[in-house]
């Protein structure tokens, strides 16, 4: 078992999959000679050459479509979009082609592409570099969405995404590439559906994904220490499809729910999880479910405003206490 950083785990998955299958390629802006903005492909240009580690022009819709077209013929591209804010330009090809081609061809064509991209608010990057898109992609039939919260998940989900015959969008986070964690040395694959229990608990379920899983875990520690509340933390690493059964299983145990997301609330992960709870376990509930989300604003540049826009561990703790009719 080695301790790897998140970016190292992604890089290892690239390397192994490219060694395994000569039709696996990687493409994106500055991923080749420059080694990748977040080093996810560092050293691979030297190893696999320019035909397979492709520095693209700044043409997000164009090169994403190129990857999709190549995948029709059995190529398995891993497409890196430098920031998810730029993936808006590629939504046409992702949504109109990759997600629909299997269906509209009656099962004849498929688009086994992986599109990876970091979203989320880092440090004062401004409105056009701080947004998230997972809520957009998770509503698209035919497109899988996963979002790793640890180096182990980053490796195992990318490995499965490359081999899976469906298009997969992998939502990463600008702030998480240097996160460290244990990754088993032997090769492994993680399921692209489901959720994991990141912390067992009995009193309330905190639903997180990607960076917000970490906020939930920190809040759970504090809640246990300061308030004697044992929170269960469910890591929703798969956003499409969402693990309705896993959500219900935990609620049957805890009877309370809080969804924590870095994105703004409307039409998001939180609203979808709430709908699942309402439809599947309404009568299990001891309290109304709540959400902790970003303010519904473009992310500001000013540091204090930026901090105020994004939820934090304190917000999670307060929301849990409110669920119990307590305050801190």
């Amino acid at each position, binding site marked *: 078992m080695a301790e790897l950083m998140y970016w190292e785990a992604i890089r290892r998955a690239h390397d192994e999959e490219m060694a395994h299958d000569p039709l696996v390629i990687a493409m994106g802006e500055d991923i080749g000679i420059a080694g990748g903005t977040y080093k996810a492909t560092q050293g691979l240009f030297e190893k696999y050459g320019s*035909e397979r580690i492709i520095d693209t*022009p700044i043409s997000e819709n*164009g090169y994403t*479509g*190129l990857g999709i077209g190549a995948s029709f013929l059995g*190529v398995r591209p891993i497409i890196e979009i430098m920031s998810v804010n730029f993936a808006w330009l590629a939504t046409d090809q992702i949504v109109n082609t990759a997600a629909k081609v299997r269906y*509209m061809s009656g099962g004849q064509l498929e688009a086994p592409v992986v599109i990876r991209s970091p979203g989320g608010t880092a440090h004062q990057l401004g409105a056009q570099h701080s947004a998230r898109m997972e809520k957009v992609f998770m509503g698209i039939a035919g497109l899988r969405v996963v979002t790793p919260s640890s180096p182990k998940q980053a490796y195992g989900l990318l490995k499965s995404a490359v081999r899976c*015959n*469906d298009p997969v969008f992998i939502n990463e986070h600008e702030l998480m590439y240097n996160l460290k964690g244990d990754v088993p040395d032997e090769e*492994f694959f993680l399921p692209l559906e489901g959720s994991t229990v990141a912390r067992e608990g009995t009193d309330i379920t905190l639903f997180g994904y990607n960076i917000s899983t970490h906020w939930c875990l920190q809040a759970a520690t504090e809640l246990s220490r300061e308030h004697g509340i044992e929170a269960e933390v469910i890591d929703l690493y798969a956003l499409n499809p969402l693990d309705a059964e896993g959500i219900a299983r935990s609620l049957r145990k805890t009877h309370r729910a809080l969804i924590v997301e870095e994105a703004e609330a409307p039409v998001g992960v939180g609203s979808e999880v709430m709908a699942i709870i309402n439809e599947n376990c309404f009568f299990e509930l001891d309290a109304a479910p709540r959400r902790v989300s970003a303010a519904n604003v473009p992310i500001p540049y000013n540091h204090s405003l930026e901090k105020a826009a994004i939820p934090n561990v304190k917000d999670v703790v307060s929301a849990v206490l409110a669920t119990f009719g307590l305050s801190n």
Partner: protein
Amino acid sequence: MTVTPNHRANNDDTVDQSQLSDEVKLRLLQEMLYARRFEERCYEAYVERKIGGFLHLYSGEEACAHGVLEAARPGEDYVITGYRDHIHAIKCGTDPRAVMAELFAKETGCSKGRGGSMHLFDAEHHFMGGYALVGGPFPLAVGMAKAIKLRRSDEIAICFLGDAANNQGTFHESMNMAKVWNLPILFVCENNLYGIGTRIERSTAVTDQYKRAAAYDIPAQQTDGQDLDKVYAAARVAVDHVRSGNGPYFLELMTYRYRGHSMSDSNAYRDAEEEKVWQGRDPIDLWKERLINQGLITAETFKSMDHEIIESIEDDVIAFAESSPEPAVSELEKYVLAENDPYVTGGK
């Protein structure tokens, strides 16, 4: 603007016709006439409400797909296009019955009734689809060319799209990538002078589309898209260029559609005089006259060819489409995702 020697308009009337054998010339007449009758029968079926949705017909443009694909390897080369796609699919080898059944939304259709007129597919014959987003196929085509190059095989990718599609960003992004990576792709622009109701000079700064390829240093040619000999001759040059590993090529074919853009279009924006001029240069008439002059066919044999085609479309194609079953509603959610993909459960 300076145009390199490779960028030229081909207005040469003396095309060498010896490239096609008599047998092939006759087959092409039969195929183009079949295409015309097929499309006109679709028109009727649409009026009868047997076909739903949008329907874009190819009547008037037959020499484009036939000339280009005759010079290529239909069924082997990877072909992609927009929504005006029936004839490209058939020329690639798709059974016309499966095309009509698709338009009739039947399970036996070439997309199992899930696609419709704008989304014909036939993976077996390397017809990689009809797509409805104008300009959408450009990058897909370049991607197929990338895959061909990675696999070191000798097929090429061929992308047929309209003139108005060249105003999408995907056109420029794709031409650029095709050139930077020297990919085996032939771009065929079917320039019928209109994007729905907007005539080309009202939307497009440079109306000669072949000139736009110069911006990417891609060799290009403009030719008469109504004259099968000229299309074929130009396409031979283009296909040879691409297949020999010289990178992309851009071929512009000047053509005209007879019907409205789709069935919901009255054509009111077009000048009757203009329509008449183009109908005087009908690709099938031109070809028929040429073959009559060459003694390959007579007016009578042409007539009986026409009758046979009309009959076989009725007895074979329409009958098949009519009698085929619809998809089962219980299979509504089939084909959204891969079935039983082991990696969805972590490789187990």
